[in-house]
């Protein structure tokens, strides 16, 4: 009986204490007609067989050198990060409702909040949301609470399309209008919206779906000039070198969200990741999600506890700022250890290396006949490569060579058939870059035009 400790003698004693003759009696309040069905599950496996099966199935996923990004990035994660996050005391604890018995988790969350506010140059960070895209939806709802329900949200069309789909779902159920902000077809960058819409907020993705960098100061000031909130969508690793959203424009972005995966979270085919959300202190009461504060006990010893719980569903129920309860705590723990392990210098070095290697690959690919880069302008570690063949065909051909060459924009319903979104991180060695170039050269030669 895996994981159930009871021996037969113990069961007998317990049944006697309850006054039942068998375990079925424990279900005597269940209407009789509900209890019978065949459970269509396979038989159980011993741990040994389970390990073997998991290893075989893991091995059935082909290992690839990763040049895909699009919101999920292959980075180096120091060995200590998951060694610590996997420690039973952190891995198997619940939400820290009993503060005194959860000082480990609580201090880590407080440190996480501190890291994130420093990174974004804002004042408050919550203790995580599910992922970047759902965090953006929450930020929009928060903006509407701050600026008046019924208003619209301005959503740039060069936001990652999966993120847009999440907004369509979550905001759609509340019938919140989403107004598109088009992008310049020559640069891939946002155009300033025309006219003065009565909107609650403008979303500003720094980095956009094509990997490009936006004119964030101008966009932020534009929004503020129209009494809109500026919602920044940022890559936290990129913030080691890019301007912090709290410093965008004259007043800084109001709400900052992003996908935290780049901070020590394995790709895991897309999750669990975590979303972050930071804001000014003035807006904290409209913020969704948990928040940890530093306080003291009766002896003035410093400690940490959850705070402003009245915003949350377990207190405020239908009037809460969000329905979120379980968040991505362990991911935040890993991210905190990751940020500490890299340190300021390491974080900056990782970001600089991403950029430098991406530039290097771009320079190498510039020499491949027939390719071009449709969107000039600055980028961080991701750029669009326009191929003289179908990007899907090229990508599939490079899979055979152990390379995940990027994301076909056509899969997103964007760009042209030849457009491939290529991402390079610090994991790619110079040799990897040359291999990519060479594989592409061979593939383009072999593929029919």
């Amino acid at each position, binding site marked *: *009986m895996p994981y159930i400790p009871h021996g037969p003698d113990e069961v007998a004693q317990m049944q006697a204490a309850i006054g039942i003759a068998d375990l079925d009696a*424990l279900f005597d309040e269940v209407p009789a007609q509900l209890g019978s069905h065949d459970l269509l599950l396979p038989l159980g496996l011993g741990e040994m067989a389970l390990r073997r*099966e998991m290893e075989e199935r893991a091995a059935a*996923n082909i290992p*690839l050198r990763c040049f895909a990004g699009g919101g999920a990035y292959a980075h180096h994660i120091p060995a200590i990060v998951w060694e610590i996050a996997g420690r039973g005391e952190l891995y198997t604890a619940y939400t820290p409702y009993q503060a005194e018995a959860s000082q480990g988790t609580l201090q880590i969350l407080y440190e996480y909040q501190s890291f994130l506010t420093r990174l974004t140059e804002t004042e408050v960070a919550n203790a995580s949301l599910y992922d970047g895209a759902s965090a953006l939806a929450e930020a929009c709802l928060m903006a509407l609470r701050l600026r008046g329900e019924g208003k619209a949200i301005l959503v740039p069309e060069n936001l990652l399309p999966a993120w847009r789909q999440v907004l369509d779902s979550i905001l759609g159920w509340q019938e919140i209008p989403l107004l598109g902000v088009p992008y310049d077809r020559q640069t891939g960058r946002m155009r300033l919206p025309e006219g003065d819409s009565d909107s609650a907020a403008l979303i500003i993705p720094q980095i956009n779906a094509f990997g490009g*960098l936006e004119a964030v100061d101008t966009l932020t000031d534009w929004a503020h000039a129209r009494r809109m909130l500026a919602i920044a969508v940022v890559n936290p690793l990129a913030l080691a070198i890019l301007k912090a959203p709290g410093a965008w424009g004259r007043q800084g972005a109001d709400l900052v969200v992003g996908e935290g995966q780049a901070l020590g979270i394995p790709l895991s085919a897309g999750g669990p990741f975590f979303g972050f959300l930071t804001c000014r202190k003035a807006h904290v009461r409209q913020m969704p999600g948990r928040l940890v504060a530093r306080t003291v006990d009766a002896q003035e010893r410093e400690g940490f506890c959850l705070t402003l719980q009245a915003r949350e569903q377990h207190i405020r129920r239908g009037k809460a700022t969000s329905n979120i309860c379980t968040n991505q705590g362990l991911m935040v723990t890993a991210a905190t250890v990751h940020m500490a392990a890299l340190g300021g210098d390491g974080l900056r070095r990782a970001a600089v290396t991403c950029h430098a290697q991406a530039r290097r690959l771009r320079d190498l690919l510039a020499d491949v006949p027939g390719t071009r880069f449709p969107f000039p302008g600055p980028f961080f570690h991701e750029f669009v490569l326009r191929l003289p063949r179908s990007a899907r065909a090229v990508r599939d051909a490079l899979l055979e060579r152990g390379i995940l060459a990027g994301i076909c924009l056509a899969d997103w319903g964007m760009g042209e058939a030849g457009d491939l979104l290529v991402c390079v991180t610090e994991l790619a060695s110079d040799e990897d870059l040359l291999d990519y170039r060479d594989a592409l050269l061979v593939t383009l030669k072999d593929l029919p035009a």
Partner: protein
Amino acid sequence: NPTPLIFAYDHQQDPVHGSMGEAEALADIPQALLRGDTLHWPNPSELEVVRHYTRLSQRNFSIDTHFYPLGSCTMKYNPRIAHEGAMLAGFARLHPQTPAPAMQGLLGILWELQEWLAAVTGMAAVSLTPAAGAQGELAGVAMIRAYHHTRGDHQRKRMLIPTAAHGTNPASARMAGFTVVEIPNGPDGDLDLAALDAALGPDTAGIMLTNPSTLGVFERQIVQIAERVHGAGGLLYYDGANLNAILGRVRPGDMGFDVMHLNLHKTLATPHGGGGPGAGAVAVRERLLPFLPQPRVARDGQDRYRWLDAGDLPASIGRLSAHAGNIGVLLRAHAYLRRLGREGVERVSRYAALNANYLLKRLQAAGFQAAFPERRASHEFILSVADLQRENGIRALDVAKRLLDYGIHAPTVYFPQLVPECLLIEPTETESKATLDRFVEVMQRIRQEALETPRLLREAPHHLPVGRLDEALAARRLDVADRG
């Protein structure tokens, strides 16, 4: 001696920025977009990081170190083999945009998990994408909304929810655009059918229930409730938070529910990680199948798997997160089900119920008041210490804090709100009789302390790294980030 913050460890190294190499590397980015040197960040050594967080970890209670009978949270053992498997490079390094042919190992697992969850819930189909129970609830009620809208029933805007329900229920209903109507429970813990009847009408979208309910008892009228709600044109949502109580024994589908979520991080033993991540898969009957959130996994022919997304699922309520949900959690849940198998799954609820009922009986014998003494406990049960409060002002919170001193995590307190001074206690099936006996012994001692030395409880905890923390001060000061 409090543990310092990580920011205390800062060995200023030779400057990185401003260095020639860096300036050159960033030369192509306009200065206006760059950060400069405003990042205030520590530079600890690796040993400092390890030591800091290892010591912090020791300041936690957890399943791996303590009995954790937190009601409604199903704090059962989290098998380590599942963690090991999920962290294999073949899973952990998969980019979500990997084409399906290169991730057949994973897709096969997800497909099986969909099938197995359908089997244990008695439902027709499953989507694994919700990231947690609350997101599953949101997806579930959004499907109810989509169902009514598809039929032109745009007026069905009211969602019925028992007063005792988890707070996520009304919050989720509201996020999906519903208004909430609360339905009271009767004195025996079951739903007030008359109140239900009164609330039902042409504007009824549905009802959200968990069964066993949050009162720790099985809703005996569930078949009648289903008939009435269905009769009024509404749908039934099952909140899977308490599924551990009936796993492998009673299927929500058989009770008449149309849609539900499962908390994989409760019922299927994936870890709670100090707050998450969870996974809140949703399961539906046939008629809601078209609305399931995307993506899902399909099997084409023999053992070839692919993603189903917007193109395949035109009526889907859409996407809940940028990728396919908390895959790593799903892998752990799959491993747990694979390990237990049919027989093991059937045992879960039996032993969960055995532990809860045994504990209830013994605590009653020790003088504690059950909220529903005449009822069978489900996998959890409610005690009320209103008697202690009346007698000498001892509150449920004081009992909870004193338990910490004895190395036992506190049960859930003050939920459900309708039982005064309540403790919601859920031992789970993975705890031994010896652990339960020790809990009874400690509770007995605390009861005695409450009567004889109540200050010991009111000032508890005494033996933890910090004493009772000033939460009011925390909210007032709102020191939520160290600014350096």
